[in-house]
């Protein structure tokens, strides 16, 4: 179904972090941007669709001052808003927002770090654009910071802090089907496996809480009102987001899932785990029974590699890209 294409070499290897691959498709310029986190650096590659041109850039995590040690980056992700695309980088010290090509930093938000270190790690993790102008970022205390983004310029403001989680945020996602009818348009996940479902707006409303089983939910997606969540048990669960009804459970992987992605136009689902396997599934929503069906389509094994990022490169799922711990390349697959 898919075959391997030529990999893109990156300047350093990928770190073992959840959801460690960012992809942004720039159709008007026939380019795709990729981001891969390595310790305190984000590797950015801009790849032309004809496969002939690759340009690289590295972004460093911002240090408040020289006396402190380097800050590790937890995640880098693109946020595509109606008015503009931005790149958000979260680290132990704070949140950096760049123009999507990484050329300029437009905003910096410092996290509150205690004077004397406590045994609770401090970091920001979980990034998603939602609605017309919001970017949501989670933190290690379970809070979600909501930033209001103007259509141009750097006048980004912190407009809200959502409290719904008690454990560190692992991932945040917005409704990706493009449908305006969805009641809820944002989902967040934490280290205890709990999911919160929200509706964005001037004031965000929490619609539902889907409890976990003390096992981290490491990656979450929202598609046509269905929450798709990957867990440390290697399982994928599909819930109806607003009611919390469990539609399906898949014993998908033999180790922790590190990344999930959905191709919204085709309903293809990608799952990747530390067990070195990437799997492609098909989700279909049956309107009559309001149930969701999951069918398995394809496997790819990246030998001896603990995968940390996997994303579709386009809305149909025609191609996908994969990163692995200690691997200095972005592996690509396209449909045969």
């Amino acid at each position, binding site marked *: 179904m898919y075959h391997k294409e030529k990999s893109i070499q990156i300047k350093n290897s990928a770190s073992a972090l959840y959801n460690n691959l960012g992809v942004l498709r720039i159709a008007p310029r026939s380019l795709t941007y990729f981001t891969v986190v390595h310790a305190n650096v984000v590797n950015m590659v801009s790849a032309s669709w004809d496969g002939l041109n690759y340009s690289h850039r590295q972004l460093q995590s911002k240090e408040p001052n020289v006396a402190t040690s380097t800050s590790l980056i937890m995640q880098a992700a693109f946020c595509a808003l109606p008015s503009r695309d931005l790149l958000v980088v979260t680290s132990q010290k704070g949140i950096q927002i760049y123009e999507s090509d990484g050329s300029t930093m437009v905003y910096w938000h410092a996290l509150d770090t205690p004077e004397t270190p406590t045994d609770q790690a401090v970091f920001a993790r979980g990034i998603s654009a939602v609605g017309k102008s919001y970017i949501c970022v989670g933190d290690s205390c379970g809070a979600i910071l909501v930033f209001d983004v103007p259509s141009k310029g750097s006048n980004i403001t912190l407009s809200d802090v959502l409290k719904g989680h008690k454990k560190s945020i692992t991932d945040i996602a917005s409704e990706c089907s493009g449908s305006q009818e969805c009641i809820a348009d944002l989902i967040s996940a934490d280290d205890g496996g709990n999911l919160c479902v929200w509706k964005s707006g001037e004031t965000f409303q929490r619609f539902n809480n889907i409890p976990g089983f003390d096992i981290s939910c490491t990656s979450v997606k929202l598609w046509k009102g269905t929450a798709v969540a990957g867990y440390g048990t290697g399982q994928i669960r599909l819930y109806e987001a607003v009611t919390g009804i469990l539609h399906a459970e898949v014993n998908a992987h*033999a180790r922790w899932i590190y990344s999930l992605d959905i191709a919204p136009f085709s309903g293809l689902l990608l799952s990747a785990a530390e067990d070195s*396997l990437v799997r492609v599934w098909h989700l279909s929503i049956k309107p009559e029974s309001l149930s969701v069906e999951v069918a398995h389509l394809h496997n790819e094994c990246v030998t001896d590699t603990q995968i940390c990022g996997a994303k579709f490169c386009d809305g149909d799922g025609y191609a996908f890209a994969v990163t692995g711990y*200690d691997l200095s390349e972005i592996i690509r697959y396209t449909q045969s």
Partner: protein
Amino acid sequence: MSMRTLPLVFINLGGEMLYILDQRLNALNTSEDNSDKGVWSENDRKRVMNDIVGSMFSKDFMDELLKPQQLYSHRTLKTVLTRIAHASIMRLNPVSMDRLYELMVMAFKYQIFLCPRPKDLLLITYNHIDTIREIVKDTPVVVNQVDETHRKIIEVYSSLPEGEFQLLRQTLLIFFQDMHIRVSLFLKIQVQNPNGRFALSTSGPVPHGIEVPGLIRMFDGKGREIRRSEFPSEGSYSSSVKEGCFELHGDRVIRLGMNMYTVNNPEETHTSKDTSVKMDDTPNLLAKEELNLLARLMGSMKAEKVPKTETGFWINMFPTDQEEEEAGTSGVAEESLFEVINIQAMQDEQVTTELARIAGQFAEEEDPPLNLSSSKGDDLLAMMDDL
């Protein structure tokens, strides 16, 4: 990221160090001409082991490690581990220490990489502690220290949720990233590939608490299962075995962290670097925090006073032709070896001196070696003769 890595890092790396030292000291037990000279007695070996374990598991040192703090650089780690090794009468030259560090790190990286569940990092740690306890079993005072530390670790870590352990594991994986030194033992038993990467199997038992991949279950609105289907998992997994024991004593079940080195096979510890990847070569200002940590750790270690009548035993642990040559040509440099740490020359002179000063503060006063021949056997024999 995680603020709780140091205790586990030191116990596991220290454990690997002890396994390797134990093997090497036993290997040195056979002299080439079968004479009685140049032989390490059982007592010598035990004494070295007891001194090192005593230093590593000292209450003050462990208390410092247990304070919440970041994992800093390889340089700091190597400095402290060298100091621990030198708590005994044994002395390692810098080339040996570098090789030793490489081995320790690759072994620990292998264990972290293949750790079935993040929580099993504790079982790996307990495997190290169990073996260490066995090594020092004839010295009740040291066994006591080991037990005390073990209890403290159980107290601090047992209740951590899996997410915390995964964060800890990710912090360690980032720290050991890009290290692909080939270890001949690992290559021999095929846990490492010729390119330096570890083998990750898609067969065998799944970790405890995980289901064998392959099943899809679908439910109706009331939570009743309405259909099952299977998919090809492309692995040959079997169901999990029983869970290991997290108490002071018990069957750990997983074997990672147990001693892989056998007594009479010193070639197992041969390493070869992937020369294209450099470790830790970017000179950077050592953060003030890091220097503070180093000072605190060094200060908390017991300074074993070796009596002046006794000369330290030098060991060149990993002799290669190149090393013999290096040792020969840098004959003058050997005098500085007794300043405990000789950090490889780097562009940041200031940092180097700072580290050396901190390390040197805690060195015993020692007389320089009387015999500076470049051959390993000669060195040791000379030392023995001088007693």
